[in-house]
């Protein structure tokens, strides 16, 4: 089946109506594309507005002075279908009475500041060690050695009616930490 190639009509000045219609088609196409893509890109990339959730970790008295405890809880930032991945651990260290006789706590995310692997607490040597690349932190969360560029991520905490509460942590990264100070 041979098809004759249809030649476009030779050079003729376009009537203004045709020129206008070309512009109109381009504009309509651009508007249609934007109408589809703006919501779609927002759907893919925009962050859901999340309210701040506080999680009760236990009575203040349950945390001995100068000791680091691991506390696990179900992260309220979860979806019902998150399963066990929503289980979240934090390290809690009761530092002792701070200003105004209010207890001072250190609450760390388990994620190493290097690449996010879970660090382990070794009370014998008073160090946090990361299994991936050997990042080590002191009990106060400061970097001791290895590749991490900073100390452990601090979670926001508060004491309400004798209960220690922590602000539900998102996954912390270098430019998106869990508190304002560090």
């Amino acid at each position, binding site marked *: 089946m041979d098809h004759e190639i249809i030649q476009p009509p030779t050079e003729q000045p376009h009537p203004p109506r045709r020129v206008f219609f070309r512009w109109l088609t381009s504009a309509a196409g651009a508007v249609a594309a934007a109408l589809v893509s703006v919501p779609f890109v927002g759907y893919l990339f925009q962050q859901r507005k*999340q309210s701040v959730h506080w999680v009760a970790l236990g009575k203040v008295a349950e945390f001995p002075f100068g000791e680091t405890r691991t506390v696990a809880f179900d992260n309220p930032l979860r979806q019902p279908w998150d399963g066990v991945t929503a289980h979240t651990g934090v390290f809690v260290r009761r530092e002792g009475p701070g200003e105004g006789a209010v207890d001072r706590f250190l609450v760390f995310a388990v994620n190493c500041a290097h690449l*996010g*692997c879970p660090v382990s607490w070794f009370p014998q040597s008073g160090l946090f060690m990361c*299994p991936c690349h050997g990042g080590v932190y002191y009990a106060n969360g400061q970097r001791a*050695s*290895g590749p991490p560029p900073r100390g452990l991520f601090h979670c926001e905490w508060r004491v309400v009616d004798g209960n220690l509460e922590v602000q539900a942590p998102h996954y912390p*990264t*270098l430019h998106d930490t869990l508190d304002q100070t560090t």
Partner: protein
Amino acid sequence: MNHLLRELGNWIDVRVGYSETLLPMLRHPIPRAADGPMGWWYVFGSASLTFLLIQILTGIGLSLVYVPAANEAYESLVYLDYEHPFGWFLRALHYYAGSGMVVMLLAHMTQVFLHGAYKYPRELTWMVGVVLLLCTLGMFFSGQILRWDPDAYWGLAVAGSMAGRVPVIGPWVVHALLGSEIIGAAALSRFFALHVFVIPGALLTFLVLHLWLVLRCGISAPPAADRPVDPATYEAEYHEELRQGVPFLGDAMLRDLFFSAAAVIVVVAIAAVVGPKGPTGPPDPTLGGANPRPEWPFLWLFALLALSPPAAETFIMLVFPVVVIGILFLVPVVSNRGHRAPSRRPVAVLAVIVIYTTLGALTYLGVTAPWSPEMRAWTSAAIPTDVVERSSPLELQGSLVFQYKNCRNCHALEGVGGRRGPDLTTVGTRLTRDQLIDQVSNGTPGGGNMPAYGKQMSPAEMTVLADFLVSLRPSGQPPAKVWSSSPTTRP
């Protein structure tokens, strides 16, 4: 019956026209030399394609059972492994055929590179091939995430941390990757969509383009040392060569078919013997004991990253892969003419040898990962008895401090224990007591690889630890000494 079939074929052909389009494509002539013994070099591309077909088949099969939801994915994988008829086999085959596809792609690319087949007019074929390699590696990474176990969870954590290092838009990239504030269901769904819709769609599209380019540019003849490529005359020479060519459809295909069949048999045997990979456990991040490893095609990058100084890390994470891909992509732009024969291209041959040696060495290091501490060595690896059988009570006490302070997690004794720091079996011959106390107290200067233990142990503990470390010498060897050359004694 035959007559009826032929009638039906004709009826369709009149409307579709395959005898004018598809058949000539399949019968396209290939250079006669490619049908000889040299033809065995040409089998890797079609073997990659065969593995891709197996991946599509097993992938569709797995999707009938696998649940891409964070709360049930692990359970559905366990069900596939242990209960669903042949579920274990499909999972194993999907993994090993995927691995085979990467191996065949690398072999195919290496052959094309060594034979200079990427030169004029096949530059774009090579570039599209690089895109296909990237798609395949993307399938490998996203597939590992779907194996919803601790490795998948912590693999996402590492990927998120790397993405978080991107300047300015880091947090935004992390969210785009994870789809949520925490690692969980949204991330799994994103990687499921990538693995099942987005990357396969791209892969098949570029594959069609790749095959079209192969047909349009023709199969390159095996390289001859006396026939360099000159774009001005190549088309005419190739056309001349094809006059004695042989049709692809027919005996010329036999080698491809035979090799593909053999490759499939090998992969099926491996899958049947070794069985499915994982899942290693439920993806509960509070279980601990995680030590995520990337899949084998990425182990070299993992090792390179671990061995690089912290100052270069962000560069190697974010920029280096782009540079490597860019170089691969631009290979035909750098040289698209001249000699094709490996005997005339020593630099190309050397490059292949250097690249594979480097990748092999880095992959080996990635498997052994000597930079990772042994988190349980302080309790699980006992002090070798011959080290302490003649120790004094203080030295014995020091050996307990050595274990108890977790030194063993990074330091081996007689090869057992962590390998992040040096093996200390004979450290007493290398460092004096003062040097040892300085090293243990202050760690590596500038916060390098060893933490400072000065505040982590009492003076008594430090004393006995130093006693123990000094005693770590082969019998008969004196402790290390320092040559002190006081300036006053000099003339």
